């Protein structure tokens, strides 16, 4: 039993065979292998099937609103930089409803890990298209098949000069675990977009399909080359798995907060400086 397992049985609300189970295991393995104390680990999620993940591991969690995973995650890290913060949710949550936060969190570069279960569908609401749904995919709302360009999260993240961009496939547990570990240890915002088969609402992008349509980046691949990364991120055909892009040396959001430079204490340990306050009021007398 790992540090993140419960000591009692848990009723998991996912379908048997769902890729989410694999991701849950990979996440727990990554945390265990990094020997992170669950008392310091906070999961932040939105709403959706993927967003239920934090319920099933024994850490802190903040299960907020659909699409609003990154703002609280950023704030939690900024309010107590000692915490390890993992923002984990679905493709609809992160790239659809939450698309604006996705872009601006990347710009802000908080030291958090952003895990996205990319099943190319809105599963919890029963199978509508998500931003990453491939063209032609038929759903109850997209009755003639999706016509829009699928959202390419890794290309957009690279265009935003994100500090860490990786892609994984839930079916490859070892690689997924390793990528999550790298993302957690990376300093700065780290995206791990994970292909996740939804066995109920996505009968096209199955385990087999993902297996056939992905490959692992060569050892020689240099993730610090932005242009090459963009090429990889947008190349037609199979999707590359691995760390696509790393921008080294970016300062994090928390590092930019001047108040921690003089005093590293997290916010909850601080009290009102009465003298400072008195001084401020008195300065308004003259």
């Amino acid at each position, binding site marked *: 039993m790992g540090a993140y397992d419960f000591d009692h049985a848990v009723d998991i609300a996912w379908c048997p065979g769902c890729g989410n189970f694999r991701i849950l295991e990979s996440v727990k393995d990554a945390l265990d292998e990094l020997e992170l104390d*669950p*008392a*310091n680990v*906070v999961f*932040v999620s939105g*709403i959706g099937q993927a967003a*239920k993940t934090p*319920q099933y591991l*024994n*850490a*802190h*969690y*903040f*299960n*907020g*609103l659909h699409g*609003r995973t*990154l*703002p*609280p*995650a*950023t*704030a*939690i*890290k*900024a*309010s*107590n930089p*000692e*915490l390890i913060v993992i923002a984990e949710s679905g493709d609809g949550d992160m790239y659809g409803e939450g698309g*604006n*936060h996705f*872009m*601006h969190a990347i710009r802000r570069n908080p030291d958090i890990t952003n895990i996205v279960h990319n099943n190319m569908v809105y599963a919890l609401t029963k199978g509508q298209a998500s931003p990453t749904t491939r063209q032609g995919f038929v759903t109850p709302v997209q009755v003639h098949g999706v016509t829009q360009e699928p959202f390419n999260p890794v290309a957009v993240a690279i265009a935003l000069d994100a500090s860490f961009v990786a892609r994984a496939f839930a079916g490859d547990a070892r690689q997924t675990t390793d990528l999550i570990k790298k993302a957690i240890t990376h300093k700065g915002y780290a995206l791990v977009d994970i292909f996740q088969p939804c066995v109920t609402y996505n009968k096209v992008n199955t385990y087999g399909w993902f297996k056939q349509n992905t490959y692992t980046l060569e050892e020689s691949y240099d993730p610090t080359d932005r242009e090459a990364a963009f090429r990889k991120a947008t190349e037609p055909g199979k999707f590359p798995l691995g760390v696509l892009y790393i921008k080294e040396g970016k300062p994090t959001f928390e590092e930019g*907060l*001047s*108040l921690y430079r*003089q*005093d590293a204490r*997290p*916010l*909850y*340990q*601080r*009290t*009102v*400086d*009465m003298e*400072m*306050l*008195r001084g*401020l*009021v*008195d300065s*308004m*007398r*003259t």
Partner: protein
Amino acid sequence: MSIVFSGQAGQGLQTLEALLTRMLKRSGYNVFSYSEFMSRIRGGNNSTQVRVSSRRVFSYTRRIDLFVPLHENAMERFHDRITQETVILGDRAFIEEQYLDGHHPVLEVPINEVAREKGGAVYANTVLLGILAGLFFVDSDLMHEEIRMILSGLGEDRLQKNLDASDEGYERSKKLLKPGQAAVSIERTAEVRDEVLTDGINAVGLGGLAGGCTFVSSYPMSPSTGVLVFFTKKAESSGVVVEQAEDEISAVNMAIGSWYAGGRALVTTSGGGYALMVEGLSLAGCIESPLVIHLGQRPGPATGLPTRTEQADLQFALYSGHGEFPRAILAPGTHEQGFSHTRHAFYLADKYQVPVFILTDQFFLERRYNVPDLDTSKVYDQRFIVQTRADYRRYALTENGVSPRGIPGFGEGRVRADSDEHDEDGFITEDFSTRTAMVNKRLKKLSGLQMEVFPPQLFGPEDYRNLVVCWGSSLHAVQEGLDMLGRDDTAILHYSQVYPLAEVTAEYLERAHKKIVVESNATAQFARLVRSETGIAFDGAILKYSGLPLMPEDVCEGLHEKLGKKESTHGRL
């Protein structure tokens, strides 16, 4: 005495306002100022009213004793406020023909010419400052000191030119009055000199610091941006994380995230921005997060009048958010309350784990006047978080609905916050009886909030015949308006907390023969709230929603109309 300058955006009226009010206050005058301005950066027409008095003054008045036009169309919007008593001071070129008819007192000063002589048109403001300093017998050293203070950023050369310009104005003022014309004779008070001169923005900001605020996330929006800027300026010295979010949705979700992790967070916004925070409000309600929302009202709907004032978001603040959960709404009427109530908002939010609003408006935030002090001795610094044990349950059911609040990183337990309906541990549940218990738990907190309500304040005779009810920023205009009317059978009841509604409300209202509500909105929202709680209807409403602040004259005329001629009252006659 009411002075109005009328100029264009970009002419530096705000600097003049700051200089003049500071200088006059330090000379021992009570001051009040307020600028009404358009939603543009250059041009148009804006104006600033500065009132100078031997008594405390707090409201924006229709009356203009001294009018200073500072550009060509400067008088256009003021025809109905310039009377034959209004002294017009300034450049002949800016004074409309009709006022040069000999029936209006005019003090011609070629302000622009003087300014140009002193180095350029930009010095017009300091010329004017000098003139007013002269008229008000301000010590010229004090004037210089203020100029040095406020314009320190300009560099030595331009600073000196400003000083010279002010001196020239000062000199000119001496020659302005014809023999026999009196200069300004307002009594000064030594105590005023050392009082605190503040606008609403600083009152709210300082109240936030006093309340232990450590996190501010917001998106710019008039008139609430000032509070964001306040915290930015103070961020370092006072240990506040301040972040301009990409949108208001992010801002409110950040604030809630910060509370979860041990911060004490505030968002500052206006109606349109708050509209985007409404889902977040409901989130705070569900996960029982404290949250402090400064909502600076402006006229809507939609973009409305971005730089004007109104009190039309009371119902919105009260009923927004899907589902049912408790909240509190404070509506400070004075700057002292702006300070104390904001501090109190953090206390309430933290203690009851609910969202608390500080409902102000553009007028409240921008008006400036001197107050004896902001009482920092009552700094609020009580913390309601607990160190968790291994068996910690975030939503433990308790007598009063409040569960001890843990945060991650402080203790052994796990802190699980869930926007789905949850059990005591914070896990998602669909159990019907747990659901009912959790709704009851959340709503129970209303009783606690009710017990800590700020009661309304009564001004005037206890045995009133008529009662004038108002809330938030309207207080002073109502007071001055009733003073003007001069009825001693009428009292004022002012609410600085509008929700929960104080239980004494019905009692107060029932004692009145006539009940009049005064609000800066079109539908009498507070009256509707009172009726929904007490069943009692008002006999009349004085409502203003043009975008300008409520003025004493509006109140006086309105009351005159509603209450009829003054009756012989009270047995006091």
